[in-house]
């Protein structure tokens, strides 16, 4: 069958090209300048692999395949185009969970079919299946939490023991299947149900603030599951892409946990980052409001202003107004810098994305290490919808849930102006002593509105 043979070599060659394009694409995505082209490379690889797979020898069920692709693909396209930037993390979780589900489905087809495989393949199918299923249900919970569908973190003593028991039971059934002791449909079904349950119980106790790290972890796990199923199907593109993502994702997860000053074990098992249970600290002093007019004058005559944007700026979509405001200040000769905390907002790089969107030049943007020594020399620190990332309690109070997280030293500035709508707490739900300091003034209002008022005030100075 020379036709089948040559189709096979064509498929093999295309998968090779796809693997190379994926690696080059990921490489390009890890530098800001080439990032955009990276996704195009990877996308080209995906297109090649998908199209060529239709030529796979012995394929049937084409209508079903195309129907499933159209339904899944267009739903994802539609939702991906619509989702707001602030909701990106949960959307990534959702798509990632779908990938995990896909890997689990492959494993299920192989295991239900139960054709004689060697131990190695059936073991890989089982391992990939459990990882994929955990990633599927776990990512669904992560989505629910970040989307606000699940608001409480369910937690009870013995949680870890339950997880261990579930894992042991799933592994036991998986072992029966893998070693061909009992691969009846009932056992296979039980195996997948337990794996899905495990994903739920593992993820439910984890607080929302840690979700980006957890999503990244499930992302790595899905990669691993895909790689394992690739070995089962002897599909090189899946093996390479899955393993590369598995390893890259593991590293990325560690880097993200580090940026939040947490260890991965701590994220998974400590239950920190829960909006519900965090203690609300007691703070002495009073909040001192300020009018936009006065705040505008204060900034107009400052030598140096450092802007600290936070989640509130993102929800108010105030970045354009803020940049307009800063341009006015720069025209007056004021030195303006933006101080970006690594976990400001709700996803890593959140603030950078928004400021880039508004057109703020890169050289005005500084990260935590660069800028922290500069606050002492600033006349005004303008806090816009940020809270936890400037909370000095992280430096001092060991019992605080954010203790140890590096923060921006806005309290060292000569004057602090805080834009927020009211007395709302930040993500971690704790009080912020910075707002009660003698040199702090509160400018109440939606960030966008407040910025507009400040612009008026500064224009009125001349």
């Amino acid at each position: 069958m020379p036709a089948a043979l040559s189709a096979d070599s064509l498929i093999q060659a295309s998968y090779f090209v796809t693997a190379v394009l994926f690696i080059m694409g990921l490489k390009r995505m890890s530098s800001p300048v080439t990032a955009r082209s990276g996704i195009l490379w990877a996308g080209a690889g995906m297109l090649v692999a998908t199209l060529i797979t239709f030529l796979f020898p012995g394929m049937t069920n084409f209508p079903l395949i195309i129907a499933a692709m159209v339904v899944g693909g267009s739903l994802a396209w539609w939702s991906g185009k619509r989702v707001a930037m602030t909701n990106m993390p949960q959307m990534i979780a959702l798509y990632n969970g779908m990938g995990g589900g896909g890997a689990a489905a492959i494993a299920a087809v192989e295991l239900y079919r139960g054709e004689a495989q060697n131990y190695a393949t059936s073991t890989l199918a089982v391992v990939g299946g459990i990882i994929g299923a955990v990633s599927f249900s776990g990512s669904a919970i992560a989505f629910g939490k970040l989307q606000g569908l699940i608001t409480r973190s369910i937690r009870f003593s013995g949680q870890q023991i339950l997880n261990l028991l579930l894992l042991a039971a799933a592994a036991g059934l998986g072992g029966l299947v893998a070693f061909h002791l009992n691969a009846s449909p009932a056992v296979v079904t039980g195996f997948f149900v337990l794996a899905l349950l495990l994903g739920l119980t593992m993820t439910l106790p984890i607080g929302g603030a840690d979700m980006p790290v957890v999503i990244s972890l499930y992302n790595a796990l899905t990669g691993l599951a895909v790689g394992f199923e690739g070995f089962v199907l002897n599909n090189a593109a899946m093996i390479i892409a899955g393993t590369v993502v598995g390893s890259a994702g593991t590293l990325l997860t560690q880097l993200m946990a580090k940026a939040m000053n947490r260890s991965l074990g701590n994220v998974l098992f400590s239950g920190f980052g829960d909006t519900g249970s965090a203690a609300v600290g007691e703070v002495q002093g009073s909040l001192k409001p300020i009018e936009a007019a006065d705040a505008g004058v204060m900034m107009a005559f400052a030598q140096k202003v450092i802007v600290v944007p936070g989640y509130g700026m993102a929800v108010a979509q105030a970045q354009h107004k803020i940049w307009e405001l800063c341009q006015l200040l720069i025209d007056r000769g004021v030195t303006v810098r933006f101080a970006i905390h690594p976990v400001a907002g709700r996803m890593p790089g959140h603030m950078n994305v928004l400021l880039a969107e508004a057109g703020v030049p890169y050289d005005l943007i500084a990260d935590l290490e660069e800028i922290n020594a500069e606050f002492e020399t600033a006349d005004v620190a303008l806090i816009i919808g940020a809270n936890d990332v400037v909370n000095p309690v992280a430096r001092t109070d060991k019992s605080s849930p954010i203790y140890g997280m590096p923060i921006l030293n806005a309290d060292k500035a000569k004057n602090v102006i805080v834009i927020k709508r009211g007395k709302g707490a930040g993500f971690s739900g704790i009080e912020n002593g910075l707002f009660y300091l003698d040199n702090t003034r509160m400018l109440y209002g939606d960030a966008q509105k407040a910025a507009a008022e400040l612009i008026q005030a500064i224009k009125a100075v001349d």
Partner: protein
Amino acid sequence: MTGIVALYIFMLAAFTGYEVISRVPVILHTPLMSGSNFVHGIVLVGAMVALGGAQTPLEKTIGFIGVLLAAGNAVGGYVVTERMLEMFKSSGARRKGAAPEKH
């Protein structure tokens, strides 16, 4: 593929993935997470093969779900990554142009 060869491929792919990501700046964490999320959307080709070889109704059902989910992973991953990186393109270009003195 023999076991040891599979192990080599696994090891080398893992090193490659690790090295490619090391030293990535914090600002790219989310787009990169989303980009690697897209890359494991390659599970689509496996799901296609699984459904393409499915015979019983049960296999077909699971295969259908698998392709649907995998297609969602691939397409959704692409769309959101592209949208996020689109913003970096401009800032990257600006960085190169406007602030060349920055190292």
